[in-house]
C-alpha cells in the first residue's frame, strides 16, 4: 500500500490529530487524552529484544511493556490524578516529538498511520533526562465526533529501557 500524498486532507487531518494528542500529553491533560480514544482501544508496546539477523523475530510475542484496554488506561489516568502518584509528583517535564508521519487509507472510515515518536522526559532539577524512541502504528477511526484512536502498537527502539518507569503514554 502506498501512503497518501502529503497534500491529501486525510493525511493532514491524521497528522494534526497526532500533534494535538501530543500537546494534550505534554500538558498533562490525561482526561482530554482519553477522550481521543475509542471505547475498544487496544494499546500495546511489545518488549523488543536483540536477536540474530536470521532469527525472524525482534520482539517478544507474549510480553509487552503495555497491553492495555480502556479500563486499564482509565486506571492509569485516574492514578496520575490522585494525590498519591509519587512517580509523577513533582511531574516530569515531557515533550512528545512526532514525525515521519505516513498515512494509509485502510477503509472508508479507518486510516493506518505510522509515526516516529521521541519522548523527552526530565525529572527533578539535575537528573539526566530520559529519551524513549519508538515507532508507532495507529489505527485511526473517523467517527461522527471526529478522529479517534482505535489501535496503537508502539515499537520501542531499545531492548533495555533507560527511563525509570513508563509513567507516561507514548
Amino acid at each position, binding site marked *: 500500500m502506498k501512503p497518501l500524498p502529503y497534500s491529501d486532507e486525510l493525511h493532514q487531518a491524521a497528522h494534526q490529530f497526532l500533534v494535538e494528542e501530543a500537546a494534550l500529553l505534554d500538558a498533562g491533560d490525561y482526561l482530554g487524552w482519553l477522550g481521543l480514544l475509542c471505547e475498544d482501544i487496544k494499546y500495546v*508496546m511489545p*518488549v523488543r*529484544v*536483540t*536477536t*540474530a539477523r536470521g*532469527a525472524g523475530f525482534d520482539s*517478544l510475542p*507474549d*510480553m*509487552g*511493556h*503495555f*497491553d*492495555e484496554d480502556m*479500563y*486499564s488506561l482509565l*486506571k*492509569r489516568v*485516574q*492514578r496520575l490524578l*490522585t*494525590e*498519591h*502518584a*509519587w*512517580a*509523577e509528583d513533582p511531574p516530569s517535564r515531557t515533550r512528545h516529538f512526532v514525525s515521519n508521519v505516513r498515512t494509509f487509507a485502510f477503509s472508508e472510515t479507518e486510516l493506518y498511520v505510522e509515526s516516529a515518536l521521541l519522548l523527552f522526559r526530565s525529572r527533578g532539577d539535575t*537528573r539526566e533526562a530520559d529519551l524513549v524512541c519508538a515507532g508507532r502504528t495507529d489505527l485511526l477511526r473517523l467517527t461522527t465526533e471526529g478522529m479517534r484512536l482505535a489501535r496503537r502498537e508502539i515499537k520501542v527502539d531499545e*531492548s*533495555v*529501557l*533507560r*527511563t*525509570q*518507569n*513508563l*509513567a507516561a503514554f507514548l
Partner: protein
Amino acid sequence: MIDLPGVLADVGRGMIPARIYNDAEIFALERDRLFSSAWIFLAHESEIPSPGDYVVRRVLADSFIVVRDENGTVRALFNMCLHKGMAVCRAEMGNASHFRCPYHAWTYRNDGRLAGVPFHAEAYGGDDGFAREDQSLLPAPAIDTYNGLIFVSLNADPPALREWLGDFCYYLDFYTRQSPAGVQLRGPQRWRIKANWKIGAENFAGDSYHTPHTHASVVDIGLSREPKANKRKEGALYMAGPGSGTTCKLPPGGSFLEQLRYVGYPDEMIVTMAATWSKDQAGLVEESGFMVSAATLFPNLSFVHNWPVIDAAGTVAPFISVRQWQPVSENETEVLSWFAVDAGASEHFKRQSYRAYLMCFGSSGMFEQDDVENWVSITEMAAGSMARRLLLNSRMGLTSEDKPVKPPMAGFSGPGVAYQGFGEFNQRHWLSQWSEHLGARDEATSL
C-alpha cells in the same frame, strides 16, 4: 578508605550507614566478596524449552549463554571466545546448534565444546599445535536448578543449592510450583534505574510498612484492596533460610478453597494446588490465614504475588512476578521483571493474570512506578558527605535492648521465624547475610 568493620558493626545493630546505598568501595566489595560466591539466578528453564534455545544473562560484568544443549542439559557458558576473547553470542536470545565467533570463526557446539578452528592444519599445525579436544567455552563454576530456576555460582564449591535454599523452598513453591507442570516465565521486561540494587532487594524482602503510603494511589483508584494499612499490619513477615518475605492476612475463617477464590484463582487451579502443596504449605493459607505477597531470595532475586481488579466488572485476578535486581554500578541497577504463571493454567487465566501483572508491576506497573521513584531518590541522597555521617534507622520491631517488640508468632504454619505486623526483621536478615559476605575475606580474590 572505608572502615568496613565499623560499617558492618553498625549494620549489625540495625543502624545502616547511608553511604552503603551509593558507594564505589562498597560496590567493589560486593563484586569481589558477594557476587563472586553466592548462588545467583540467571534464567528459568521454561525460557529455553527446546534444544538449542538460549538466553544471554549476566552476573555483574560476566556474560553467560544459558543454553539447552542437544541432549537437553542446561548449561551456563561464559560468553567469551577462547581465542581472543570476542563475545561468541551477541544476541540476547534465540536458538542455535552452534555459536560461531565473528572474529576468526572458531565455532562452538551448544554444549560449549570447540567444534571448529579455521585453517587448523595450516595455522596451528593441527592438533600438535593446538589440540581442539577438551576445549570448551568456560562453564560457570557451579550450576544448579530448583523448580526450573537456574542458578550459577562463580565459586566452584558452593553449598548444594537445595541445601542452601533450605526452608525458603517452602515459600518458593507458592510462586514457582502451583502444579506439577511448574511455572512458566514470560519476558523479562528490562529497564535501568538510577538506584542501588540493594534497595529493591530489601524492599521486597520485608517492607510491608511502605505499602499503605507508597502505594496509596492504587487503593484510591480501586485497583487493589491489599495495600490498605489494616491488611498489611495484620500480615506476617517470615524469614527462612536465605530468603524472607511478606504475606497478606486473608479474611478470617475461610477454607483453602474460599481463600484462594478470594485472591482470584479458578477452582480447577485450587484443586491442583491442594494436591501439589504439602499439608504444611496448604496450612499457611488455611490454618494460618496468610497469602504470600513479596519476597526476596538473597541476594538479588525477588518475587511478588498480588491480586488486583482487572476490569470494570470487578474481576479479581492474581499474578506472580519474578524479578532480579542486576547491579550495574553503585548507583545503577538493571531490573529484569518476568511474568510468571502456572504452566498448566488455562489460556483464559494466563491472559487475565498477564493483564493483572502489567497493571501492577514491571516497567509500566502502577505499584512499581512509585517504588522506583523512592529508590532513585534514596540513591541520590546517599552519594554525598553528609550521608557518610548518617545512620539510617532500620531497627523497627526491636526494643532498645534488642528484644522483639512482639514475640515471634506461635503456631505459624511455615518454617523459619515469623512476626505479625510491621517490622524490619527481614531487611536486617537480608543485611546480615550481606554483612557475612562482605566481612569474609575471600582468599581467591586477594583484595
